[in-house]
């Protein structure tokens, strides 16, 4: 089985490496491959780079944090999407199915409305995502249902709509000259303002959540069977569902807090990863993380370089995601596998 997955992992890694290199090289200040190697080698060995200080600054301080953030957010959204698609036994599910993104969006616009500053906005976005999913889960437990999975999805739709109304209300009340543009910009998704502190607050929850999902990889395979079958195979589905939702929500909320709403990545990348390495979560989770990182790096590089102004990420991913999704729908039999 490992033999079969090897070409798939090679492709995913190639996408990540290409994404990393292009993200460092392209931009208003073009940088060559040798300059990147020089600066990184100097950084690692503790020596002095042979390039100008400007090149070093661009690589380490300007593009570096953004490149790492793009790779992390892409990996996070792809891993969360993979987990949710398995858990809900539905390949059309994305990480925001339980309201993590809409909760984070409301948190962020409230933060901007009260002029809380960058850190305050991110904390509120993070908290908003967690609270929204907790509310959805609470509804799922309190309402009796034969099909707990379907109930959760429907509760997610309902809470998502309510949170969307909340976002609309805050935007309506916001100062149209100072606050509204900031809200709009945040809701469209961007990595432009990423700095070193953001990276730490992004990395820790993403690493914790992804690790939790990775150690549960075999149980996640079984959880993708119908509920009663999974239980008959000895898997305590109710507590495991909480664990998987908590881990995936942690990962999603952290990335949404860092970069705003970037749709489609968590929906599309799991499909591509599944096509590359198959449906076994032992391989799918790492493959989705690698591919998601590379994918968002490529998208972010396009966002930075395609036009004279930066294109919001959420808009680019939608332009790429929609045709891809239509192709998915038309090609159900092959790509579902």
């Amino acid at each position, binding site marked *: 089985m490992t033999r079969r997955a090897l070409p798939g992992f090679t492709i995913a890694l190639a996408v990540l490496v290409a994404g990393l290199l292009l993200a460092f090289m392209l931009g208003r200040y073009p940088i060559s491959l040798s300059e990147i190697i020089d600066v990184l080698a100097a950084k690692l060995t503790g020596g002095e780079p042979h390039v100008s200080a400007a090149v070093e600054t661009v690589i380490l301080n300007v593009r570096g944090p953004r490149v790492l953030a793009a790779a992390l957010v892409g990996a996070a959204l792809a891993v969360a999407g993979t987990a949710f698609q398995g858990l809900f036994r539905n390949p059309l599910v994305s990480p925001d199915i339980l309201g993590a993104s809409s909760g984070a969006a409301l948190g962020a616009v409230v933060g901007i409305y009260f002029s809380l500053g960058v850190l305050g906005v991110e904390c509120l976005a993070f908290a908003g995502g967690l609270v929204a999913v907790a509310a959805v889960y609470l509804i799922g437990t309190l309402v009796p249902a034969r099909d707990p999975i379907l109930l959760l999805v429907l509760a997610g739709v309902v809470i998502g709509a309510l949170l969307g109304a909340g976002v609309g209300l805050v935007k309506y009340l916001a100062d149209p000259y100072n606050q509204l543009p900031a809200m709009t910009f945040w809701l469209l998704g961007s990595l432009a303002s990423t700095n070193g502190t953001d990276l730490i607050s992004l990395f820790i929850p993403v690493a914790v959540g992804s690790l939790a999902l990775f150690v549960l990889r*075999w*149980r996640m395979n079984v959880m993708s069977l119908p509920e009663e079958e999974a239980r008959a195979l000895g898997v305590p589905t109710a507590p495991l569902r909480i664990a998987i939702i908590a881990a995936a929500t942690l990962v999603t909320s952290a990335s949404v807090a860092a970069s705003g709403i970037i749709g489609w990545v968590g929906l599309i990348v799991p499909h591509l990863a599944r096509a590359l390495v198959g449906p076994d979560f032992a391989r799918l989770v790492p493959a989705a993380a690698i591919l998601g990182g590379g994918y968002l790096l490529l998208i972010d590089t396009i966002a930075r370089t395609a036009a004279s102004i930066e294109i919001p990420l959420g808009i680019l991913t939608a332009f790429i995601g929609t045709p891809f999704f239509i192709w998915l729908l038309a090609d159900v039999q092959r790509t579902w596998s």
Partner: protein
Amino acid sequence: MTLEGRALAIGYRDRLVGEGLDVGLAEGEVLALLGPNGGGKTTLLKTLLGLLPPRAGEVRFGGRSLASRSIRERARLLAYVPQSHVATFAFPVETVVLMGRTAHGGLFSRPSAKDRDVAVWALERFGIAHLAERPYTMISGGERQLVLLARALAQEPRFIVLDEPTASLDFGNQGKVMREIRALATSGHGVLFTTHDPNQALRLADRAFLLRAGTRVTDGPVSTVLTQQNLEALYGAPVQVLSDSRNGHTAFLPG
């Protein structure tokens, strides 16, 4: 060891499906559960498997209440073969069978080399080892049913419970699956299955339990329970009997 339901009331939180049911199954024995659609067969199966809590009464296993055993412990004693279905994700057949080993490992464990050996043995036992690498979604309905049987066997349970194992299978595959079910009992498993075909019960089961509208019509050895009179009472429809005078075999025809 026996699996028994005592004075069971079965159903869901908002709906009682049946009550006053006493069912028992011993190792090495095949019990067929017959009855009209909506009569509570699947609900009874799920209650006996511990997937649905009894509304009253108790399911006991080896003299101990099933509810007092952990979900993992239950899975090592009781295997469930659902009606063959189309899976969401195209796991290879080998992985599907390996899922039967889940209850033998810890929460974070992956299948071990021993688990793989058991899976291969289970695949070989049903003559489907050549399918190991094929996606579960790309094999025929008959093959899928055999894969689910192999998965149940890989659980190394004492009892195997099957929900309409021959539904949606062609005539030849029905025979094959039924022979394998009989073989499971011969190798010491207790087997409980539901069916719409009294002839299958007659040929393969030791005992039959007739369930109508959530209550027991009758139960006992197939030769005494499966009669024209009982089947007509069970389904509320006329039944014909065919007898072969040479070997004494009987068969039932609806209508």
